[in-house]
């Protein structure tokens, strides 16, 4: 049964990736300019170069063969060259994705650490003032556009109070070799005389973007945990337990929590894809050197190979993350395996 489920999910993954690759391939025709330049990233080719590229990209064959050649190159890591920088798009993607991931992971951790307990707290004091306060605050956080929140925080904490920097990952004066791409890890790994200060500086730089990015998923988790807890608390086995004379704390910890957190776990997984999308906005505002900022710069510079590569990388990542989240959830919740087909 579980094998059947996993196979179906992998089938879905395959289908999604297939569609994505067809879409990415067709972009080179849909973008203005020469499709061959858009694919290869080499503008203004001369005659010999053109002939070589046509041969490499099977441009004299039909679209299907061109697509096959395209997939072959994608798998080999040949994603073309960026118009703007002249270097490999794949190298850019590999270089930039860790920064985006890092920011998203920290934000997710914050949102779980803050969101779930606060949600539980709200449900524990249902309809009392802590619940009302938490729910209304979460509502405000949920409805606030994140770019606005980002600008507000920059204005108050960077420009007015000068507590936090407003751009980048670490002060540029610290020369940290990028070995993993995750700044905190890189600092720990680097043999550097000012390790401690660099670490503090990096944490300083991380604070505002992480808060901004964590705002949305935190409020979602608060609301979701609260709802889920309330639903469980309303069930008969809880009422029985209460009738037996258990305290509120005992009820929540021993009985309600396990049942209520299962759907929350699924929600956490799903939040990751939203996070990556929100991370792009955050990156632009905080000049965070991740893939989102690069993608938006590429759009501005009409760098078609980079737009193609960047879109593909981000979409692939979101598809894979969602499937993994679903699989993990299924492993934890045997009941859900009965839904063999994908559900939105």
């Amino acid at each position, binding site marked *: 049964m579980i094998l059947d489920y996993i196979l179906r999910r992998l089938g879905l993954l395959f289908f999604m990736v297939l569609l994505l690759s067809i879409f990415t391939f067709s972009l080179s025709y849909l973008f203005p300019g020469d499709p061959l330049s858009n694919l290869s990233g080499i503008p203004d080719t001369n005659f010999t170069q053109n002939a070589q590229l046509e041969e490499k990209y099977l441009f004299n064959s039909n679209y299907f063969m061109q697509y096959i050649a395209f997939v072959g190159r994608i798998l080999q890591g040949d994603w073309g060259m960026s118009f703007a920088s002249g270097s490999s798009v794949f190298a850019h993607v590999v270089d930039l994705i860790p920064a985006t991931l890092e920011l998203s992971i920290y934000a997710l951790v914050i949102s779980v650490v803050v969101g779930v307990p606060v949600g539980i707290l709200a449900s524990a004091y249902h309809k009392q003032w802590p619940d009302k306060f938490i729910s209304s605050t979460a509502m405000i956080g949920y409805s606030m556009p994140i770019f606005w929140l980002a600008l507000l925080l920059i204005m108050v904490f960077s420009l007015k109070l000068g507590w936090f920097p407003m751009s980048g990952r670490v002060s540029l004066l610290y*020369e940290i070799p990028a070995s993993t791409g995750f700044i905190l890890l890189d600092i*720990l790994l680097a043999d550097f005389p000012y390790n401690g200060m660099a670490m503090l500086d990096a944490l300083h730089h991380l604070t505002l973007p992480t808060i901004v990015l964590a705002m949305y998923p935190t409020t979602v988790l608060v609301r979701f945990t609260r709802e889920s807890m309330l639903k469980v608390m309303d069930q008969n086995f809880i009422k029985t337990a209460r009738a037996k004379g258990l305290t509120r704390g005992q009820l929540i910890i021993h009985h309600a929590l396990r049942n209520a957190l299962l759907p929350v776990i699924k929600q956490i997984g799903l939040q990751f894809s939203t996070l990556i999308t929100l991370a792009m906005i955050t990156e632009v505002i905080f000049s965070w050197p991740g893939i989102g900022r690069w993608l938006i710069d590429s759009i501005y510079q009409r760098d078609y190979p980079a737009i193609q590569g960047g879109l593909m990388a981000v979409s692939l990542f979101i598809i894979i993350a969602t499937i993994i989240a679903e699989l993990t959830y299924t492993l934890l919740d045997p009941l859900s395996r009965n839904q063999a087909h994908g559900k939105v």
Partner: protein
Amino acid sequence: MHKLLLALISLSLVGCIDSKEEILEEKNQGLVYCAEANPVSFNPQVTTTGSTIDIIANQLYDRLISIDPVTAEFKSELATDWKISKDGKSVTFTLRKGVKFHTTSYFTPSREFNADDVIFTFSRLFDVYNPYHFVGDANYPYFQSVGIDQLIRKIVRVSDHQVRFELFNAESSFLANMATDFAVVLSKEYAMALKANNQENLFDQYPVGTGPYIYKEYRRDHLVRFYKNADYWKHEVTLEQLVYDITPNGTTRIAKILTKECDVTAHPSSAQLSILAQRDDINVERETNLNIGYWAFNTERPPFDNLKVRQALVYAIDIDKIMQAVYYGNGLRAQSILPPTSWAFEPQKNMPSFDPQLAKKLLTEAGFPKGFDMSIWAMPVSRIYNPNARKMAELMQSDLRKIGVNVNIVEYEWNTFIQRIGEHRHDSVLLGWAADTPDPDNFFSPLLSCTATFSGKNPANWCNPEFDLLLTKALDTTDLNLRKQYYDAAQSMIIKQLPLLPIAHGMRFQASSADVEGITLGPFGAISLANARKR
């Protein structure tokens, strides 16, 4: 769980080890300069982009001679002495001894600077047998536009520390051109080492010079990092490290200086100066600067090849409005292509003024009674001569709409922009020029000569033999009065023919933290951080 806790505790402990003294020490070690664009290259010979020259020219390299910004006299640098022959056709430089080239991760010099390096550097510009002449498309925009590559007959090695430049003819601006930011001296030994490995293409990207700082790394759209040259021949360099934070957005640059993420910022716009002036911890420097912001037409492309069309367009523009909205009173309205501080400046009486009626009439005469569609390319970065080209283009767009001309504003990333202008893909462009020497020729030859057209520097794509003859005559004489006459004629020819409309001369601004000192901003040439230090 316990392991996680342990890791967190050790992490916070690491943070406490460093003492306050070290924090102070670290702060003094480096300076962050917020630059407005990526460098195009790391060799000033192959580019004229001001943003690039600001980053590399004075930091990584030295020249044979320089010009004193106050007295306008030549000063010795790598050349301790220079003699010009009586006929003016040969110049002999005596070179400084004991100057070392940079030792970097990719090159370790085995000898000191000598005559071979000078010969190698300058023969690259014109000698087809120089192994590097054709590296990077054989394009040396500044030298080609001022004709240095056509001027030098040969360079003779007199001794280890003496070289003689033999010229085809005496030219009054030769020494001035040798003192520009482009005439830096490169290492022959390094070039040959690269050639031996077939890596010539790295030469312009991984620099080796004799300047106060040594190249360390460049990450596109992110940073450029230099370290101190401990062996600098001229003086002790105070800063351990110099980092350029690439920040194209002007507002972000200002915000970064307010939050102390940058110590110095390039080109704050006039509109932001009032905010900066309120802060005690930030210094704003203003320096008059030899420059011109202009609107150039692609004169080879119809209908801009028609003088009447060009006249109609310039009469339709309200420059007073531009001066207020773009320069905020910190610019000077142009009376000629030369700024008033230049000795050859002559205010032009027939400078076009705002007259939409006349513009409409001229357009009808030119055969476009209903107007036409055109593009104005606006620089995406703010420069001294034009702090906000986008806004200027928008104002022009609304003025031109009134005479029936529909304008499409085009913008690209700065380096792509410059490259495409060089390929003459534009209808018209808002651009400018900041002088590299006080010599007036620096405004004419690089911008409007025929050779500049071929090297892709002439944004008006204008080649007028009569105009070129005036420039040549002016260069062939050392008689100042005669030169001024020729330049007068050249200035009035520009206004008559209007390949470009001179708009304004801007001031150079620089904002820096109050604890930074020793930054050199001159009336011409790029910024120098050789003496920069933190208090």
